[in-house]
């Protein structure tokens, strides 16, 4: 028998830690989505597809700015001392992923704006005609365009990796403290972004390409999830207990039904049939992928807060 009696009555940490609410999963999902969109947009710019006026790279940066700002707003809502938020930008704490993330987010905006300047839409040019001067100079130098594509891909990768690192550096939460969480989040971000482009693409080739790419990302995601469990289950008792939260514990139902089932296993064959022209492209599979990506963040953030070293000892 092992029995624990405690006088502790801290509603924020007992019976389990619940520090972060809906804001952080939403922020991580939108961060991952934007990361994936930047990589896709950057690749299209780099490969010269931007000459096509219907290229997704011409409108993805607008969505990226809106989604990233919404994500940052969710993060802001989570802060308990909002008036001090400016302090994030008067310090640089190399050991704190949240500090690194705050600065990465600042770096991402110029890359997105540069992407917009490459081929700004007509309504924007009508309002701000001086942008045309920048656009003309940029388009006279093809190497600059390539660099903007590379920059978007690099910053997108950095942003996506950061959303995983933010959680995985916390050794106090065994479920998060896995070396593949960053990989899971970047692959899931790419998959969500591909699904989003699949939904809104004007160009048929891009819609087909992104649906095919999404199938690849979803397949890789299955392997990364398997790797995560292998890593946890072959580690210490704390990690095994953490894995059980998702395998059979209180978070098993949303994880297997919503993340793995609706988010991966059902849309994957549907998209495979669509790209092989067996069925028509519909918005259903990409919407399922987006839902799965969002729920993945919710499950990981909430289950991670539930997992701790104390669960094993007491």
């Amino acid at each position: 028998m092992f029995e624990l009696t405690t006088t502790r009555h801290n509603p924020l940490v007992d019976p389990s830690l619940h520090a972060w609410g809906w804001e952080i999963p939403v922020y991580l999902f939108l961060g991952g989505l934007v990361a994936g969109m930047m990589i896709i947009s950057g690749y299209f710019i780099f490969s010269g597809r931007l000459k096509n006026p219907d290229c997704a790279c011409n409108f993805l940066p607008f969505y990226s700015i809106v989604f990233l700002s919404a994500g940052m707003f969710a993060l802001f809502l989570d802060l308990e001392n909002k008036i001090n938020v400016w302090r994030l930008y008067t310090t640089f704490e190399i050991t704190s992923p949240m500090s690194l993330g705050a600065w990465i987010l600042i770096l991402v905006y110029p890359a997105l704006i540069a992407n917009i300047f490459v081929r700004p839409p007509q309504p924007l040019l009508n309002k701000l005609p001086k942008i045309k001067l920048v656009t003309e100079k940029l388009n006279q130098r093809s190497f600059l365009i390539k660099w903007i594509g590379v920059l978007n891909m690099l910053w997108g990768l950095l942003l996506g990796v950061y959303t995983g690192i933010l959680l995985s550096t916390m050794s106090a939460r065994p479920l998060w403290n896995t070396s593949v969480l960053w990989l899971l989040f970047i692959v899931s971000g790419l998959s969500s972004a591909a699904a989003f482009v699949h939904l809104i693409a004007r160009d048929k080739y891009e819609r087909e390409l992104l649906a095919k790419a999404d199938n690849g990302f979803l397949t890789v995601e299955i392997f990364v999830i398997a790797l995560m469990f292998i890593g946890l289950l072959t580690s210490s008792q704390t990690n095994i207990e953490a894995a059980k939260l998702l395998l059979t514990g209180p978070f098993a139902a949303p994880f297997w039904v919503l993340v793995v089932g609706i988010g991966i296993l059902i849309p994957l064959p549907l998209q495979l049939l669509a790209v092989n022209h067996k069925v028509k492209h519909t918005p259903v599979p990409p919407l399922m992928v987006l839902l799965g990506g969002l729920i993945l963040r919710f499950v990981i953030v909430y289950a991670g807060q539930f997992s701790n070293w104390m669960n094993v000892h007491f």
Partner: protein
Amino acid sequence: MARYGMVIDTKKCVGCTDCVIACETENNVPVGFSRSWVNQIAEGKFPDTKIEILSERCNHCSNAPCVHACPTGASYINELGIVLVDHDKCIGCKACVSACPYGARYIHPEGYADKCTFCNHRVENGEDPACVSVCPTHSIYFGDLDDPGSEVNKLLNSREHHSLLPEAGTEPKIFYLR
């Protein structure tokens, strides 16, 4: 420079929670929150049972994950080895709350991360923390871990002891005598 730590004699502790009440009174801890608490762990099967009473609080770790996680430098280790939070710098992001394996931190209703300070305001004036002063069985000892002649060091050298979650690698500075 001193490196303060705490030694708690579990053979003397009766789990009266005076330390918890003294802490809440001394530091105006808001109702519903705790900077310290008492865990009573019963183990074994009758008649071979044993019980250990642990008066717990922030472990003022030398390798403090809360300090590493803080994005604004609000969490820091002072010159006495005490882990503190600068309320004016704290943005209430809760990264430190998530990073602490001991669950020692909470968000104060005024918006900053709060926890045990080893009663830093008392220590600076040469006094012991409130929990140490009030303990009716004198089971809590406080002193400089770097001073070979301090009572805490003598106890650690002479008695079997353990710390909480040493496997977490945080190098806690609270020790429990068995």
